[in-house]
C-alpha cells in the first residue's frame, strides 16, 4: 500500500429522519441537521470555519446561508453540480483542511421535493424559465423526461452488452432488502404510500409499470423530503471528537456529456474513479461498502463497471451474483441504508452516500457489514445521457 494521507475525516453526521415533512423549509432542515451533526461530533456551532453548500436551500447560497446560520466561515464553497455536489464538497473540504484554510467544514442539504409536488423525473421538456441556452433550445422541444434520459443509457447498455432487465432488477431487490431493515426507510415507504412496504423479487420489479422503456417503476428512485449534514474536520480536531474518525483517503471529480460519436455507456466515474483509487492506494477488490448513487438501476450498474468493480459490460453478470446484500460473503455490500430506490431521495442524494458509508465504518448501520473497513461513495449529478458529473470519495475506518 502506498502511503495514505489522513488529513481530514468525517467526524459528525445527521440524516433528517423524515421523508415527508410538510410545513418545514429546506433551510430549517439544513440548520437542524447541522446542529445535530455537530453534536454527534462533540463540536459546537462556533467551531465551524468552512461552509459548503450546493445552493439547495430555496435560492440562498453561500453568502446568505452563512448569515442564516450565523456563521463567519473562512472558506465558502458553493459548487453545485447536481446530486454529486456533496462528494465534490467533501473533496474540496479535505483539500482546504490540508492547506490549513479551515479546520471544521460543514456540509448541509435540505429539500422538500415531495411536499412541493416537484415531479423531478416525469416533467420532461422545458421549464421555460430562466435564460434560453443552447442546450435548452436543443433538448426541450422533444419531451425527454429525466427518467427517459437515464433510460436511453440503459437501452444502449442492453444493446452493447446484452444486459437484461432481470439483471438490473437485482439492484432494486438488494436495496429494498436493506431498506426493510432500516426503520427510517420503512417509515419513508409508508409515508410516501409505496404499494408494498416489503421485500421485493426480480419478478415484482419486472411486473411494475414501465415508466420509460426499459426502466420500470421499481427501478426509479423515490421523490422524498429530507436532508442531512456532514462535519469534516482536520486530524487534530478529529482526534478529540466523540466518535471515531472516518478518514477521507481518496477523491476524484469528473464531467461527462453527450458527444458526436461518443459512448453513452461510459460515465464520468471512469475518470473520477482512477483519480480516487490512485490517491487512496487501494483498489475496488478491497472495498467493503459501495455507496453508489441509485437514481435508477442503470446508474448503479454502470458506475460499478466504471469504478472498476468489474469490466466494462460485465455489470449485468456481476450484480447477478449474490454480492450486493449486506450479509453476503462477497464484497462489496451496496447501498446498505436502502438507497434512493427505497430509503431517501429528495433530489440530490450525494450527502446520504457519505453518511451511510460513515455509519458502516463506525459500526452503526442497520445493515452492518461485519468488520467493514473501507468504503466508496460515488455521486452522480445531472443527466446521465446529456451531461453529468461524477464525484468519488474513498473512506477508511480509524
Amino acid at each position: 500500500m502506498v502511503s495514505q494521507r489522513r488529513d481530514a475525516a468525517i467526524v459528525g453526521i445527521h440524516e433528517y429522519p423524515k421523508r415527508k415533512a410538510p410545513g418545514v423549509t429546506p433551510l430549517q432542515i439544513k440548520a437542524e441537521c447541522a446542529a445535530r451533526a455537530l453534536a454527534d461530533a462533540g463540536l459546537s456551532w462556533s467551531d465551524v470555519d468552512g461552509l459548503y453548500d450546493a445552493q439547495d436551500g430555496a435560492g440562498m447560497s453561500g453568502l446568505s446561508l452563512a448569515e442564516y446560520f450565523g456563521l463567519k466561515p473562512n472558506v465558502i464553497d458553493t459548487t453545485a453540480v447536481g446530486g454529486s455536489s456533496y462528494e465534490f464538497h467533501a473533496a474540496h473540504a479535505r483539500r482546504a483542511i490540508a492547506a490549513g484554510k479551515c479546520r471544521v467544514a460543514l456540509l448541509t442539504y435540505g429539500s422538500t421535493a415531495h411536499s412541493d409536488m416537484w415531479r423531478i423525473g416525469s416533467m420532461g421538456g422545458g421549464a421555460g424559465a430562466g435564460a434560453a441556452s443552447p442546450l435548452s433550445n436543443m433538448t426541450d422541444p422533444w419531451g425527454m423526461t429525466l427518467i427517459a434520459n437515464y433510460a436511453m443509457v440503459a437501452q444502449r447498455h442492453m444493446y452493447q452488452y446484452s444486459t437484461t432487465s432481470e439483471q438490473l432488477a437485482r439492484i432494486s431487490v438488494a436495496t429494498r432488502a436493506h431498506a426493510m431493515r432500516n426503520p427510517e426507510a420503512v417509515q419513508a415507504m409508508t409515508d410516501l404510500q409505496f404499494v408494498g412496504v416489503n421485500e421485493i423479487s426480480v419478478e415484482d420489479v419486472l411486473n411494475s409499470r414501465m415508466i420509460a422503456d426499459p426502466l420500470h417503476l421499481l427501478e426509479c428512485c423515490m421523490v422524498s423530503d429530507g436532508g442531512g449534514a456532514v462535519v469534516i474536520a482536520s486530524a487534530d480536531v478529529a482526534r478529540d471528537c466523540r466518535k471515531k474518525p472516518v478518514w477521507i483517503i481518496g477523491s476524484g471529480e469528473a464531467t461527462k456529456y453527450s458527444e458526436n460519436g461518443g459512448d453513452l455507456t461510459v460515465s464520468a466515474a471512469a475518470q473520477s474513479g482512477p483519480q480516487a483509487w490512485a490517491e487512496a492506494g487501494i483498489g475496488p477488490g478491497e472495498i467493503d461498502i459501495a455507496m453508489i448513487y441509485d437514481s435508477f438501476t442503470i446508474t448503479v450498474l454502470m458506475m460499478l463497471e466504471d469504478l472498476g468493480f468489474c469490466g466494462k459490460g460485465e455489470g449485468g453478470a456481476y450484480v447477478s451474483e449474490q454480492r450486493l446484500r449486506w450479509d453476503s460473503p462477497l464484497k462489496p455490500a451496496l447501498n446498505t441504508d436502502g438507497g434512493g430506490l427505497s430509503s431517501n431521495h429528495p433530489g440530490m442524494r450525494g450527502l446520504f452516500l457519505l453518511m451511510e458509508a460513515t455509519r458502516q465504518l463506525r459500526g452503526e448501520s442497520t445493515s452492518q457489514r461485519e468488520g467493514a473497513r473501507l468504503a466508496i461513495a460515488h455521486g452522480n449529478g445531472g443527466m446521465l445521457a446529456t451531461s453529468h458529473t461524477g464525484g468519488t470519495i474513498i473512506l477508511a475506518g480509524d
Partner: protein
Amino acid sequence: MDRPQPRFPEPDTEPFWDATKEHKLMYQVDRDTGDVVFFPRAHNPKNGSRNLEWRESKGEGTVYTYSVVRLNRHPAFAPLGAYAVAYVDLDEGFRMLTNIVGVADPTRDISIGQRVKVQWEDQSSGISLPMFAPA
C-alpha cells in the same frame, strides 16, 4: 398546448432554428480540421477555433439509442400517449436528440441501428421541429 419552443435571442442556435423554417437540417464544420460541431456553437469544442461554416444535412441516419416515454406530466406531452425520444447519428457525423415518429407502436417498432430519415413538424411559432421516421 404547444411543445416547449426554442427561445430567442440565443445566438448559438438561432441559425439552426431559422433554417428549419425551410425544412433544412443544418450543422457546422470546422473549415480547417473538418471537425463536425453539434449542438450549434460559435466555436469548435475540440480546439476553440471560430472558423466554422454551416452545411445542410441530408437528414439520414441511424438510431443510436431511444426510450419510449410512458409518463410525462407536461401538458404538451401528456396527451401524446407513449412516444419515443432518441439520439440519432446523422450520416454526416453529428448526433442529435429527437423523436422517432411514423411507427404504429413505438414500443415494438423502433430499434437501435435502425435507419431513419428526417420528417418535419411545423410549429405555430414559425419554426419546424426535425423528427425522424423509419427510412
